[in-house]
């Protein structure tokens, strides 16, 4: 056997790849993630709903942006993470990646659902309709289906968590391939697309007072995602390793 030179990254990879140390390390972060998420949400919403000036065109209804847009970003961000985890789970059969995949799906689906409903709630006063079959909305709806597909696959094979996770990974990867397809095909077909009212990229027509809460909320939701995902991932690891010593120690000593 050749001696392997271990650098920091490899070591970290191995540590995060082993369930017990992942469980231990993630345990340190949990509390802080939740705490920061709550505080930032409080600040962001206060800033957005109270301090930020009303939009000259949309009035106060524009404040839905502080829920809608962070959620919309998260719905896609989470799917990307899920897809990467799925790829790792399939190729390297890494248990922690399976855990991340399975733990991301429910929270991602929630984010997507909120995006859809808040979009609807915004559309009624702005466009006079709850729902329009426009490119962005349709693809967001299909994103929800993809999340549901991943979760349904996982629950359908509930008798064997690891097998179920690998099946779900397959679905997630296929869905990943599907995302750009949907994006482009929907562009192709759509003709009634509503242009973005506000653009924050490049030439920004939004004032700093309006942008600040948006960014705060975007960070806050990322922290909550971190919390929710890690917590679920830990549960998944306990479940799949239920015969291992380290799990027994954790369960019986009640230290979580």
């Amino acid at each position, binding site marked *: 056997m050749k001696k392997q030179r271990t650098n920091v990254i490899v070591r970290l990879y191995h540590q995060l790849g082993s369930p017990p140390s992942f469980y231990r390390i993630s345990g340190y972060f949990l509390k802080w993630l939740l705490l920061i998420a709550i505080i930032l949400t409080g600040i962001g919403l206060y800033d957005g709903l109270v301090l930020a000036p009303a939009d000259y065109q949309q009035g106060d209804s524009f404040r839905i942006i502080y829920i809608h847009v962070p959620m919309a970003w998260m719905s896609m961000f989470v799917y990307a993470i899920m897809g990467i985890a799925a790829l790792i789970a399939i190729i390297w059969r890494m248990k922690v990646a399976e855990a991340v995949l399975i733990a991301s799906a429910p929270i991602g689906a929630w984010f997507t659902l909120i995006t859809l409903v808040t979009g609807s709630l915004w559309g009624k006063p702005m466009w006079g*309709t709850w729902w329009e079959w426009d490119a962005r909305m349709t693809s967001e709806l299909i994103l929800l289906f993809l999340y549901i597909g991943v979760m349904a696959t996982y*629950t*359908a094979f509930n008798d064997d968590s690891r097998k179920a996770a690998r099946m779900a990974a397959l679905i997630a990867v296929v869905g990943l391939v599907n995302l750009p397809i949907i994006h482009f095909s929907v562009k192709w077909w759509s003709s009634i697309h509503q242009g973005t009212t506000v653009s924050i990229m490049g030439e920004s027509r939004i004032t700093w007072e309006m942008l600040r809460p948006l960014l705060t909320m975007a960070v806050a939701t990322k922290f909550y995602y971190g919390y929710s995902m890690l917590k679920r991932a830990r549960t998944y690891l306990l479940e799949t390793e239920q015969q291992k010593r380290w799990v027994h120690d954790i369960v019986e000593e009640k230290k979580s």
Partner: protein
Amino acid sequence: MKPFFALVKRDLTLGLRRKSQIYQPLVFQLLVVTMFPLGLGSGAKTLALIAPAVIWILALLASLLTLDQIFKNDYDDGSVESYVLTSYPLSSSVLAKVLAHWLLSGLPLVVFAPVIAVLLHLPSHSYGVLMLSLLIGTPIFSFIGSIGSALTMSLKHGGLLLTVLVMPLLAPVLIFGAGAVVESSLGNSANTHILLLSGMLVLCITLVPFAAAAAIKINLE
């Protein structure tokens, strides 16, 4: 516990455990509704026009997806014996099976209908009639379907045969159901349609259990 309630309870437990029986017809509906604008392309403005028909056809198709399971499952695993080889009347057991099926697959469709209606731009003053008509119509699907399921339960690929058998029987339900919604969306009264639907339901309740029981007995011989 009376055999009737024992059977209903068992089927509900099964349904809630499988879950798929409940939420997947809904997702199916949602998916197909999504397909329509995709397929229609620039014709999307016609959506509201075809909304009543689409909603009712979808409810019918979503029901059809689960209809063949009413008796087939029990036949496949042999538990049909538990209510056939007993002196408790088979028609009561049929009623129990139908009731459980409707609670699991019909009722969710009724509750979920407004969401589909929004997606298809149905005028909002028709939601009441839509839900009422579905509330009366979906049990008829379960009833008629139970006869079809009883006839096809011993077949391995009976699902499609069942479709063919029951579709003609369900056409009137569809006509009056969708008709009621169309009328109300045009601002007219839908009373006649609703009345006719109710009549069909009463007829089903009184006749179908015996018909389905007979079908089961013939099938087992």
